[in-house]
């Protein structure tokens, strides 16, 4: 074969290769040199991220400095949607589902009909079990913010996820502080619990001025966790971090802004007294066959709440990380509503303890004075309003003591809890001109009844102080003298909360100042410096002369010394008090009497009161029999006295 001549086609091939390679070089030059800055910036946007660091939530102490709530570390597992490669999403979701024992798709764990209106309100994350996929889809709106899939993940699982991080891109394990309520049910109603922001409040939380709330933050849902959310929360920190493609922090860049820990709370509660009150109430309730009761103790000179017990209670630790369906149903369906704080939410007829309001009003309005004697014949007959001459239509009103008390002064009437004295005082009888409903209601309101006390706990009820208009609007009937009689002894339409009755009692005890009850004594920072000192807050100074209140005090002292409340008498300290047995609609006993709630309010020492308290036992019978001994036991503990 002769020598071949060079092939022109190969030369064309060479030229084409040169052209293609020049094109590559040109485009690379364009990317690297012309647009280099922009790419560098995008690369930095990839690797640097502004993340917020949670501030440790403040802890809570009792007034003696004993720790009631603390933070313990726990693990959360989150996904950064932007870091989850689409082609590996399925694999990652399946692995997480088996590690975290979570469903892939959302599902309901129970019948939709039995769901509460707003599961979030109760921190019921586990109720409606959101699937991993749904959570991630939800999080795509803010793809760089980690979406928390599970709180309180067991340590072994958290470590396993960390180990597999190469196979779980976009999955982040973080530690967070978890609440531990050391005394559980003992303080649940006071402390409350934290949970996810309720759905309908998300906006208001996120839009708070200077707010650093994020969707998955835990906030106080009830108790002081809710009312002192702002103080407890602290301020989140910020830091720039370099992350890898899985969103894992490689290192912190530049100076981090450290989070400011939340402030600590010092409650006004005395843990020992709280325990003693709880035990005393529980034992008496068991003995009386009652399912529900309240004890609240207060410093009558300041309004500080020393103990606040509402039974039955619940364990607020159950709500940490979301309560389970069974636990929640048990609490919700319980007939005596343990989730409710009966001390401020329960509204009951106050019974005879309301007589202290009538006595003060009668004295101040000069309807009576200390010497005025009213005769108690055991029964009085209220003439029919349209046929006053017809005795057969007259309505009988009886004293609890059927034999009658005879003529009584106001001090004795309080001591003996004479019903007829207070009927006459409030509603008038024969030629005796009574206070009348408007005046009685006016004084009731002065004592703080019929409106919330303003205690720093959520969910307080107003109570009810009736008026003539109110009855006409509600029942379409006119107010009659009999209604005034009933109200005079704390029956009929009037409703009060145990806390309101305690506050009224404290006002009597301290000589006429109605304080706002407070449950948080001080707010301190982590170094122990006082951020907000205790300041007593006066709701109003009662426009009642000291000598008139002194007579009410005398009556209450007499009730304990020799009257109906003798079971609260203690050697060594002068106790003053007033019993109440408030009838409520229910099954009548063998003698045809309605069942009664047992009430007792007291304060001591009578001459210079340090402590006032209210004891309420639902369906507990006679206040003097069931409620007064509970108070005696608590007071004995408080004053360190032996019980007889």
């Amino acid at each position, binding site marked *: 074969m002769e020598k071949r001549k060079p*092939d022109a086609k190969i030369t064309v091939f060479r030229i084409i*290769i040169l052209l293609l390679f020049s094109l*590559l070089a040109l485009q690379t030059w364009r990317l*690297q040199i012309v647009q280099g800055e922009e790419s*560098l910036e995008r*690369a930095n946007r990839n690797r640097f991220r502004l993340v917020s660091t949670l501030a440790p939530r403040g802890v809570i102490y009792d007034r003696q400095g004993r720790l009631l709530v603390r933070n313990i570390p726990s693990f959360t597992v989150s996904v950064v949607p932007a870091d989850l*490669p*689409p082609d590996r999403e399925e694999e990652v979701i399946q692995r997480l589902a088996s590690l975290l024992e979570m469903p892939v798709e959302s599902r309901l764990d129970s019948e939709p009909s039995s769901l509460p209106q707003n599961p979030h309100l109760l921190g019921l994350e586990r109720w409606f079990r959101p699937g991993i996929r749904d959570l991630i889809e939800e999080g795509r709106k803010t793809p760089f913010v980690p979406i928390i899939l599970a709180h309180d993940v067991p340590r072994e699982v958290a470590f396993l996820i960390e180990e597999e991080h190469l196979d779980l891109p976009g999955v982040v394990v973080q530690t967070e502080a978890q609440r531990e309520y050391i005394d559980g049910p003992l303080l649940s109603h006071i402390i409350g619990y934290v949970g996810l922001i309720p759905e309908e409040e998300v906006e208001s939380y996120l839009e708070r001025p200077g707010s650093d709330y994020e969707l998955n933050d835990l906030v106080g849902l009830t108790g002081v966790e809710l009312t002192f959310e702002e103080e407890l929360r602290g301020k989140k920190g910020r830091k720039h971090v370099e992350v890898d*493609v899985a969103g894992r922090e490689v290192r912190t860049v530049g100076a981090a802004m450290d989070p400011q820990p939340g402030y600590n709370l010092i409650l006004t509660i005395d843990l020992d007294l709280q325990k003693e009150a709880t035990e005393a109430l529980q034992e008496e309730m068991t003995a009386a066959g009652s399912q529900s009761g309240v004890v609240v103790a207060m410093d009558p000179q300041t309004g500080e709440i020393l103990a606040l017990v509402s039974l039955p209670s619940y364990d607020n630790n159950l709500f940490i990380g979301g309560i389970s369906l069974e636990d929640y149903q048990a609490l919700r369906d319980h007939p005596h509503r343990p989730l409710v704080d009966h001390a401020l939410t329960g509204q009951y007829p106050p019974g005879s303890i309301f007589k202290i309001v009538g006595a003060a009003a009668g004295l101040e309005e000069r309807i009576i004075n200390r010497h005025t004697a009213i005769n108690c014949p055991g029964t009085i007959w209220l003439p029919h309003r349209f046929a006053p001459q017809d005795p057969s239509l007259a309505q009988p009103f009886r004293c609890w003591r059927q034999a009658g008390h005879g003529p009584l002064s106001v001090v004795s009437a309080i001591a003996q809890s004479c019903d007829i004295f207070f009927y006459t005082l409030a509603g008038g009888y024969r030629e005796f001109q009574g206070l009348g409903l408007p005046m009685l209601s006016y004084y009731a309101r002065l004592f703080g009844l019929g409106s919330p006390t303003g205690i720093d706990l959520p969910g307080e009820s107003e109570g009810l102080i009736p008026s003539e208009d109110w009855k006409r609007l509600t029942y379409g009937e006119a107010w009659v003298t009999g209604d005034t009689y009933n109200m005079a002894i704390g029956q009929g339409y009037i409703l009060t909360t145990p806390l309101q009755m305690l506050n009224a009692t404290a006002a009597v005890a301290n000589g006429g100042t109605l304080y706002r009850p407070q449950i948080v004594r001080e707010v301190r920072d982590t170094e122990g410096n006082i951020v907000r000192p205790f300041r007593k807050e006066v709701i109003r100074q009662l426009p009642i002369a000291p000598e008139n209140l002194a007579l009410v005090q005398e009556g209450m002292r007499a009730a304990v010394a020799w009257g109906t409340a003798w079971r609260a008498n203690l050697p060594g300290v002068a106790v003053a008090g007033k019993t109440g047995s408030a009838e409520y609609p229910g099954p009548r006993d063998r003698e045809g009497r309605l069942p009664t709630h047992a009430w007792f309010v007291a304060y001591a020492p009578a001459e210079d009161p340090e402590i006032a308290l209210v004891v309420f036992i639902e369906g507990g019978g006679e206040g003097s029999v069931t409620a007064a001994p509970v108070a005696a036991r608590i007071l004995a503990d408080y004053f360190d006295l032996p019980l007889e």
Partner: protein
Amino acid sequence: MRRATQHFDLLLLGATVLLMFYGITMIYSATYLSGEGGQSLWDTFFARQIIYALAGLGLMFLATIADYRYLENLYHPLYILTILSLLLLLVVGSVSFGAQRWLGFGRFQPSELAKLSVIICLAKYLSDRGPSIKRFPQLLISLIYAAIPMVLIYLQPDLGTALILGVIWLVMVLMAGARLRHIAILALLGLLATPLIWLFLEDHMRERIIVFFNPEYDPLGVGYNINQARIAVGSGGWWGQGFGSGSQSQLHFLRVRPTDYIFSVLGEELGFVGVLILLLLLGIVLFRILRAADLASDDFGKLIACGVATVIAFQAFVNIGMNIGLIPAAGTSLPFMSYGGSGLITLLLAEGVVQSILVRHRKLEFQ
């Protein structure tokens, strides 16, 4: 024999070895340095690539020593073996990234072998037919040789390799003297069939094309890789971020780093200068292979050399073009650089055949 070795192309070998060394270095950075170590040193990407390179060089020398003209008699069994292995793959192949590309034993990819055997078959067919390729029926028959493995590979589905086979055919028939008019007619027919082809394209192929024309579309979905690659290359600048210091590579924002996106790692860490060195080395390899085509003593050898040059040039262009956003992501590897045994060994084997052509380009010296 002594005189024969004087025609062995040391420059071609040297450029190839440098390219492989360059590739292994970047694989080391993209995997080992970025925290993707294996159980042992032997289990790492770069160590395995070294072994593949050594094995490939061994085969290359064997191919150099062997007379490439034996292949003229071997082409039929070789072609049948290729088709059978492609069929077998479709039935039992292991699935990876949604496609079947490997056969069980030693994770061998028959589609890589298919490139070489299509080159040899076409070279044999075209050199046998000579000028008759200027006739349209002959051209069509040559197309069938390429089309059968193309369809089988497309079904895996591996659009990139199927396309390479098509380009091999195109370049080789043109080199053999096919009429441009005929090619134009075929191209026109192909163009008319485009809507039909679109219908038969796999979803992920379509997505890749859509993303190519609209890169901002779905930045975390299919466009993710392309976007991250552009960012990586772009942040390289003149001199790069430094070896082992590219944030896109080291923090794993880039995926499939050692294979399809090794160029981006290079671009990010060694910059424009590093890229120019790569293009220079690839250019040397290509021009030396085309030199072999010029020197070849027969059409068979010339066509083989052209086919090999086509594979290297086209893959390099498509792969780099994909990394810098010139071309849709098609999943082709960068010759001599990307991690992967089948591809590297096949290329080295092909280069051995080219050396064999060179060594024997003067018949007289052997007789």
